[in-house]
């Protein structure tokens, strides 16, 4: 399925590591993020948040705060629309401010707008809220017990969603298996930790609301904000400035927008509201802690026959994007290895803790950790090499998963083999010095979601390219959202390639609901493929129009025309040529604006069972990751020294940006594997909601990383592209856990792999060995 090499070499702009279009502004401090924006007359907004995990609001007295000089507005639930919001359809369960009850430490209770931050903070301290503290639900295992307090009336037994999917005959497959194992694993409430906190700047002018915010999707923000405030979508404009990272956490409105908008409407002045770091943590919407039990059966040769996966998922206080997360948890498990019989039973439950949502890899990384760990255990049981068992089962191209995901390109086998080679696996596995070990983990991910988050017939992406009247530049208008990953650069490269002009000729207007065509935004690793298709189509429309006119001007047949790097020429007669800008200029003079338009909607994907859309995608990536570790057996400390990642991500538009995505995704997996977990006291109060105690790795903590690729061409992607931004997060936890096992023979079933946990496991093994020796 690979495109002929000759054609690849014809590309002039794509496939090259041009620097990011925004790198200069970011390197010089010119890049302004939402919190950096200055507008005349603006007020500062601040939110009063609940100190209790579960409490009834008896009364709120704002009178003292209102009297403080410099305070321009104090608002509570009674001052804002009572329409509930959320991001998961049919589960809109949040209010701008808590109405009767607060459901987690950090729930929004009131807000102020004041002339400066100091006055706003003082005003918050003057708001008197009387609470009746209720017992909190903190344990996801007990949350479903009938005697537990209820968080939401509409979710009996605190069940957020219950999922049962069954494909093939798992019971028979397990009964027929040569070997069956059941193991239980668990993950943590890891957080996105974008370096830029959530922020919004709202203006209310002439019945129109304009919100500049740190967002991954202006479209979804516009849709929900208009709905909550009862405005026409056209009267809500959402745009972004620079965005300092998202990782899933800025896909849904955070409250910063709703609250600043409400304050702007009340005061008639612009209101800027920026979360502090504690607020970013408690707002959360990050990783769901999952408890995963896998029962898996294999043949004597290690061929997977079937798997039954059971999940208890802690969703926290509200739904967020958690319904999709819960479906993803199970849906992605059968993607990378081939087996026909699969069952998945899951419960997402509510607790009085920060709400969980989508984070890089969505619901998939923790189940992938479980599966990759168990696969290694099965290999050991069978006396097989960890890589060999993966090669036996690796998915092949042009196959279908049991849950009806259609896989086109798939160079997974090649990725595993290459990782084996470049890591020196065969020389290292089981042969390293004491305390050192090597392990493998794999993963695969979607390249955009088959269906948007709410039901709509809108295409997934649109693009417009307008060539200037002089023909010297072209402006790409796209709703795609660059949150740092580099989509602006990649899409500009694609636009230039499609039109036959240079990268430097492209200007960008992006991610603004008013000036750019619709696009669902930066999530589900969708933009390179989906926004890319729309850009390609728009660019090709410009190219076609230009070539038609050029053919007339050169008195040639349009089929014989070509354009490359601004030169339009007759194929076979390069002396018959004309500059792009001359033709474009002539086009404007004689025919009007030179514009290209494009859109993309995926084909109908997936099965018809309940939940079938989750996990569907036009294309899937695959990756193999091998990690090498050194352990200190006395303290339990583990140091990962090297990681090799080999990705099948289809064709590459910008190699530097692509490897940067792999490195970043792997880094996030590493943090979740080794360091990161939000922790709470017995009352549900967060204990480490700061960047000192919630430890993301520093530059001293990360291993040497080798990011490599296998050749692959995806027919469903523009120029053969597919996913890269999230897939490399998936294998890391499993590969680390497996490397630790190789090093010291200790199997860790729950994340993160802290020194104390490893030490305890070592101590337990010592005790068991002593007891065994004593018995003899």
């Amino acid at each position, binding site marked *: 399925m690979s495109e002929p090499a000759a054609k690849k070499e014809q590309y002039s702009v794509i496939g090259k590591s041009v620097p990011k279009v925004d790198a200069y502004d970011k390197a010089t401090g010119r890049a302004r993020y939402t*919190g950096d924006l200055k507008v005349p007359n603006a007020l500062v907004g601040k939110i009063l948040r609940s100190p209790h995990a579960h409490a009834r609001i008896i009364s709120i007295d704002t009178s003292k705060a209102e009297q403080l000089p410099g305070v321009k507005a104090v608002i509570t639930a009674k001052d804002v629309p009572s329409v509930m919001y959320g991001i998961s359809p049919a589960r809109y369960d949040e209010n701008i401010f808590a109405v009767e009850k607060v459901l987690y430490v950090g729930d929004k209770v009131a807000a102020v707008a004041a002339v400066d931050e100091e006055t706003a903070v003082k005003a918050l301290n003057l708001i008197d809220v009387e609470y009746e503290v209720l017992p909190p639900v903190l344990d996801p295992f007990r949350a479903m017990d009938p005697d537990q307090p209820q968080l939401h009336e509409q979710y009996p037994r605190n069940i957020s969603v219950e999922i049962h999917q069954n494909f093939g005959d798992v019971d028979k497959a397990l009964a027929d298996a040569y070997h069956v194992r059941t193991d239980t694993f668990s993950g943590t409430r890891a957080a996105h930790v974008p*370096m830029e906190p959530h922020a919004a700047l709202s203006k209310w002018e002439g019945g129109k609301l304009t919100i500049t915010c740190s967002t991954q999707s202006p479209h979804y923000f516009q849709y929900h904000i208009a709905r909550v405030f009862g405005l026409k979508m056209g009267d809500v404009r959402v745009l972004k400035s620079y965005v300092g990272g998202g990782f899933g956490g800025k896909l849904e409105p955070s409250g910063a927008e709703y609250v600043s908008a409400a304050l702007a409407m009340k005061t008639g002045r612009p209101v800027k509201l920026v979360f502090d*770091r504690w607020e970013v943590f408690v707002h959360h919407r990050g990783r769901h802690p999952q408890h995963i039990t896998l029962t898996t059966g294999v043949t004597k040769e290690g061929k997977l026959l079937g798997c039954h996966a059971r999940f208890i998922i802690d969703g926290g206080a509200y739904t967020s994007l958690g319904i999709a997360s819960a479906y993803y948890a199970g849906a992605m498990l059968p993607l990378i290895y081939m087996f026909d019989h699969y069952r998945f039973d899951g419960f997402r439950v509510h607790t009085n803790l920060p709400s969980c949502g989508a984070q890089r890899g969505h619901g998939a990384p923790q189940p992938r950790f479980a599966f990759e760990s168990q696969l290694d255990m099965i290999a050991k049981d069978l006396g097989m090499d960890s890589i060999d068992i993966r090669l036996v089962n690796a998915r092949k191209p042009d196959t279908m998963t049991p849950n009806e995901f259609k896989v086109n390109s798939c160079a997974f086998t090649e990725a595993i083999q290459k990782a084996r080679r470049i890591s020196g696996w065969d020389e290292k596995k089981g042969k390293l010095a004491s305390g050192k070990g090597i392990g493998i983990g794999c993963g695969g991910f979607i390249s955009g979601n088959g269906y948007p988050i709410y039901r709509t017939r809108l295409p997934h992406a649109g693009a417009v390219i307008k060539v200037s009247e002089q023909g010297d530049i072209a402006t790409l208008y796209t709703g795609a959202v660059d949150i740092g990953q580099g989509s602006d650069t990649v899409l500009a490269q694609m636009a230039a390639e499609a039109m036959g002009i240079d990268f430097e000729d492209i200007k960008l207007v992006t991610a603004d609901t008013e000036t750019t065509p619709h696009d669902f935004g930066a999530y589900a690793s969708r933009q390179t493929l989906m926004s890319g298709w729309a850009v390609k189509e728009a660019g090709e429309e410009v190219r076609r129009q230009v070539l038609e006119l050029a053919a007339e001007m050169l008195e040639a047949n349009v089929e014989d025309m070509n354009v490359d790097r601004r030169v339009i020429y007759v194929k076979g007669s390069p002396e018959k040529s004309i500059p792009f800008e001359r033709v474009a200029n002539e086009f404007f003079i004689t025919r009007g604006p030179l514009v290209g338009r494009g859109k993309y909607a995926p084909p109908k994907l997936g099965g018809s069972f309940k939940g079938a859309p989750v996990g569907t995608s036009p294309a899937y990536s695959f990756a193999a990751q091998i990690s090498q570790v050194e352990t200190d057996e006395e303290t339990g400390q583990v140091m990962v020294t090297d990681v090799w990642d080999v990705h099948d991500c289809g064709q590459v538009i910008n190699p530097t940006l692509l490897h940067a995505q792999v490195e970043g995704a792997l880094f996030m997996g590493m943090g979740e594997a080794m360091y990161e977990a939000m922790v709470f006291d017995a009352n549900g109060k967060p204990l480490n909601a700061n960047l000192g105690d919630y430890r993301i790795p520093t530059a001293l903590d990360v291993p040497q990383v080798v990011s490599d690729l296998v050749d692959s061409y995806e027919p469903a992607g523009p120029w053969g592209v597919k996913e890269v931004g999230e897939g490399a997060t998936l294998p890391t936890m499993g590969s680390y856990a497996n490397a630790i096992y190789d090093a010291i023979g200790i199997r860790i079933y729950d994340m993160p792999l802290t020194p104390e946990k490893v030490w305890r496991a070592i101590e337990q093994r010592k005790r068991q060995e002593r007891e065994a020796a004593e018995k003899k």
Partner: protein
Amino acid sequence: MVTEAKPKTKRQIVTLTINGDEHVSLVKVNTTLLDLLREEFDYTGTKKGCELGDCGACTVLLDGEPVNSCLILAVEADGRSVTTIEGLEKNGKLDVVQEAFVNHGAIQCGYCSPGMILSSRALLNRNPSPTEREVRDAIAGNLCRCTGYVKIVEAVLAASAESKA
């Protein structure tokens, strides 16, 4: 003497040399250097990431030394010289560290970049030929969530090599 000091102590005039230019402002004494730079003088390249000295996004050079501007009261910096990210570019030419960050793909979301670049600049000032470990140590107080630090370390080492060439 003690009582004399009292009346004027809530506000104070602060003079700073920022990127070579003198700036004077009457500030509340509880204002941090970070807020003074951002809110009063509009040097918003200095970022606010955690406000507690944990992330390094607010790093500036104070008399040439990298510090977290969120931990320093503006009045404590009175009379001193501050370099922010806006001050590195000279006559329209990027500093070699900025150039390396751009060319090596060391910038993704860019929020940590100003602090990261200033920490790296200060490292090369005191140690023009750092080892990889020394680079990592110098930027360990600058958290980055996008890059895994891979291309950042590459960029700083490249800038070091470039400066020597």
